[in-house]
């Protein structure tokens, strides 16, 4: 109540009229992936991606000079990127003020000012107030009363200062505003667009491998996350696939100062518990720390695709990247993750192979299982695949079972797609240098499965087969591609 009165007074004190736009009428958001995240999973408590927010707002401007404040913008806004259109020539300047109302700022603004000192008796509860002037706030508070100078909260008494008004220029949140000048009162539709940090997105692929292991039923979620404390309601939502350059730009955070209360040195000879001091301790540093985001929930396991119809994102070209548009308006709530269907490819032909890369030397290890396909219509694909993670499922007695997990980078149409999904524990490679000839290696592959397995071994360009197989050159490597029989072995001798 008192605060409201005080605010009113502060506003009146300002020379120019203040017009406040409380929120957007329409909002569109385009979410961009964190370019540095690589293939790491989405980290909900630290989203390194960003978003472009475009809003329209209806404002009424008085004649003359006024300050138009935009409320309900995200707190991750990059103020340098804000674009305000629709006001024409009226705009004088754009401002973003980050001096926040905090205990320390209130106290700092009171320096040299008359305030009220309130003491409450711990014995009787009696409240006494008196006038005081704040003399120092730098490192402990010194106040002056009619009696003389005192240090606040060094006496062991319950005492505090009451300010009379909110100092001008302090706000609850960093504020974006434009200073405008209009010859007459007008009503305008203003478009505000800005880049904001703390958003991210990725594709989450869910693959169901057929029993024979050659067909994948592929579905993908567009998973987008908003780590900001501002939600975007009923937003036209897009996501951009591809890697865009970003510069490191320092955004001044809101400055919230704590109050520091320091007293003179005190010592004691007694071991009496100092209850009042303990209370002092409690109040010595009043830190106005920003609210910490709670521990982010672990990333949701990829959920099963819903029914076959529903909403699916529409893809289009945007310059040299791809834009995915969610065809309906959705609410991107504050601190939340949202999933919409991205693509659905019912029958993708895949090869499931095992892969080893070695340059010689002793080894004895299981092999990596890799799903290989080509992003072409012939293989049941042929559409851009944005970077993300893949959960690979098989079926056992009518139930899904997780076979492996992997991640893929952005793949365009026509590219070869390889996804490492698991380590095959029963298909192993053992390699030993052969003693008699320098550089000769003996490589043995063993397969404990009841099906034959295709294994690709990539060797350096200098490698030459001695016996057991043939090496062919492929993409800068010498390749030994071999089908290891069911419950059998294969062996290669080569020289590097």
């Amino acid at each position, binding site marked *: *109540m*008192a605060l409201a*009165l005080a605010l009113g007074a502060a506003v009146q004190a300002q020379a120019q009229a203040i017009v406040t736009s409380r929120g957007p009428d329409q909002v569109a958001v385009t979410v961009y992936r964190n370019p540095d995240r690589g293939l790491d999973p989405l980290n909900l408590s630290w989203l390194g991606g960003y978003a*472009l927010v*475009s809003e329209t707002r209806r404002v009424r401007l008085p004649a003359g000079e006024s300050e138009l404040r935009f409320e309900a913008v995200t707190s991750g806004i990059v*103020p*340098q*990127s804000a*674009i305000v259109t629709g006001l024409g020539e009226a705009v*004088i*300047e754009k*401002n*973003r*003020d*980050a*001096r926040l109302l905090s205990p320390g700022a209130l106290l700092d603004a009171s320096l040299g*000012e008359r305030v009220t000192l*309130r003491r409450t008796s711990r*014995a*009787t509860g009696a409240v006494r107030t008196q*006038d005081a002037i704040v*003399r120092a706030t*730098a490192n*402990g508070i*010194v106040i*002056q009363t*009619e009696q003389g*100078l005192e*240090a606040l909260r060094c006496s*062991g*008494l319950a005492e505090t200062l*009451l300010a*009379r008004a909110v100092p001008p220029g302090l706000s609850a949140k960093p504020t974006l505003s434009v200073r405008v000048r209009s010859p007459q009162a007008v009503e305008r539709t203003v478009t505000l667009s800005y880049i904001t940090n703390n958003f991210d997105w990725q594709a989450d692929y869910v693959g169901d491998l057929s029993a024979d292991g050659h067909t994948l039923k592929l579905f993908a979620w567009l998973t987008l996350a908003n780590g900001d404390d501002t939600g975007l309601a009923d937003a036209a939502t*897009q996501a*951009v*696939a*591809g890697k*865009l*350059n*970003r*510069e490191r730009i*320092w955004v*001044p955070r809101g400055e919230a100062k704590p109050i520091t209360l320091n007293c*003179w*040195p*005190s010592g004691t000879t007694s071991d009496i518990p100092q*209850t*009042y*001091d303990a209370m002092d301790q409690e109040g010595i540093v009043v830190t106005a720390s920003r609210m910490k985001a709670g521990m982010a929930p672990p990333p949701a396991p990829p959920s099963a695709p819903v029914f076959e119809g529903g909403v699916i994102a529409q893809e*289009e070209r945007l*310059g*040299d990247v791809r*834009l995915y548009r969610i065809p309906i308006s959705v609410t991107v709530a504050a601190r939340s993750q949202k999933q919409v269907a991205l693509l659905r490819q019912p029958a993708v032909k895949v090869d499931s192979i095992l892969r080893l890369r070695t340059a010689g030397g002793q080894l004895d290890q299981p092999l990596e299982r890799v799903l290989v396909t080509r992003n072409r219509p012939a293989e049941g694909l042929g559409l*851009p695949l944005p970077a993300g993670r893949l959960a690979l499922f098989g079926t056992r007695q009518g139930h899904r079972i997780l076979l492996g997990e992997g991640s893929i980078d952005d793949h365009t149409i026509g*590219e070869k797609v*390889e996804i490492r999904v698991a380590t095959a524990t029963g298909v192993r490679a053992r390699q030993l240098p052969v003693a008699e000839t320098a550089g000769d290696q003996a490589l043995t592959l063993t397969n404990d499965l009841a099906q034959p397995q295709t294994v690709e071994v990539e060797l350096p360009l*200098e490698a030459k087969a001695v016996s057991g197989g043939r090496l062919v050159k492929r*993409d*800068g*490597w010498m390749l030994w591609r071999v089908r290891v029989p069911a419950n059998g072995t294969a062996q290669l001798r080569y020289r590097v």
Partner: protein
Amino acid sequence: MRASIILASAIAVATPLAAQPQIPSPSQTAQGDIAVTIYNNNRALIEDKRQLDLPAGRSRQEFRDVSAQIEPATVTLSGRGIGIVEQNFDFDLLTPAALMQKAVGQTVTLVRTNPATGAETRERALILAVNDGVVMQIGDRIEVLRDDGIPARVIFDKVPATLRPRPTLSVTLDADGGGRRPVTLTYLTPGLAWAADYVALFDETSGRMDVQGWITLTNNSGTPYINASTLLVAGAVGNAGNGGEDQYGRGGYPSSPPPPNGMYRAGTESAARERLGDFYLYPLPERTTIADKQTKQVSFLDVHGASAARGYEFRNGWLSTANQPLSVNSVLRFSSSRSAGLGDALPAGTVRVYQRDARGNPQFVGEHRIGHTPMGSDIGLATGQAFDVKVRPIVDNRGTVTFEQWRQTARYRIWRSDGQAEVVDVEQPVGRTFYQTQMRYVVSNASPKPVTVDLVQAGLSWDTRVVEESLKSEKLSADDVRWHVPVPANGETVVTATFYTRY
């Protein structure tokens, strides 16, 4: 709460603290006619013309509302008929501990409160020492302050003259007569910085773009500058410790200078802007208040329909194989010249590029930082990576070559003044092994339009030669060669090249 405030104001009227000097509220600034000149490297020059009421002769003047980060050594004060005796910057701050320290040997009033009844008793105490605790004399007793933990207020009679609530600049001056006169205070301060921000809306089909330029200035100096006349200087001055580089410092958070790339060719035209020495000047059109912790943007450039084009660039760092095709850089190319471009010099800053999506809404397609760019420069900004255009460099073969083969490629030609040419073989150490590397670059394009990729192979220092290639290259430097690779729509082009190397 409301009652207490009303009560408080009533008391304020009833019992004015008349003995204390009046301190104006923060809205009444002590600043006069203020002019702020801001450089890129987080530094500013403040000129503050104040009206001072000076007594004749020597007096000490305190200057409030100067930058909280003022560099006191750079302060100068000038005015008609005044002489400076001395300048002081006092940072002996008024704190409870300092107050107690300065009270040693003096008497203070002690008010004890009975914890059970709240009753107060008042005594005078002589402070004997303040060393890890306060030792004092009350009558004939020696006591340690608050040793018993009982609440005790210490009331000091006055503020020691040397203690100040904030670091304070004071000047002692000699005036030739009394009265009000203007004096000019100038000083340097960190905490103010500026950079440019550009919004480029690029239309790929027409090859045009609209560019708006904004001056973005930030104030983290801890002080507002009220109704200031503001000038921005595109450059960094002084601060030799930082090499005079454009630190792009935003409020004491300097980041690396803008990358030197992005400018293909430095321009040689002069922009129609005010200049001083080496620097372009950008005065703000009207006076403005630069609040503390404020980011302020003012428009300075608005160009419509400048020509611009997309290009593709890829640089392979050394003769190596990539495990998968790598996206090429998507580069926005334009000029800052008068005839074919933006027609202005561009102060350092960030260029944000937007393109319209299928529904006509502008979407962000990447950003890039530029350094101070003269007018007439050719600029190429790598705004992102192309989703559809990729290069896969592959080492196809690596082997040795004989000295003879090596030698055949080591020749140069001398043109004599009589027009005769002579071919000279470079002397080589005999009996060494030399290497050859066959490279294959698969340049693919999944987009429905043909593109040209500027493919650069770097890492060619140490006498590396291109002896065979499927497409004519141009040598950019000792380290780099470049091919202009045309790639058809939805197709690929393979470039092969053989290099001889010494290592």
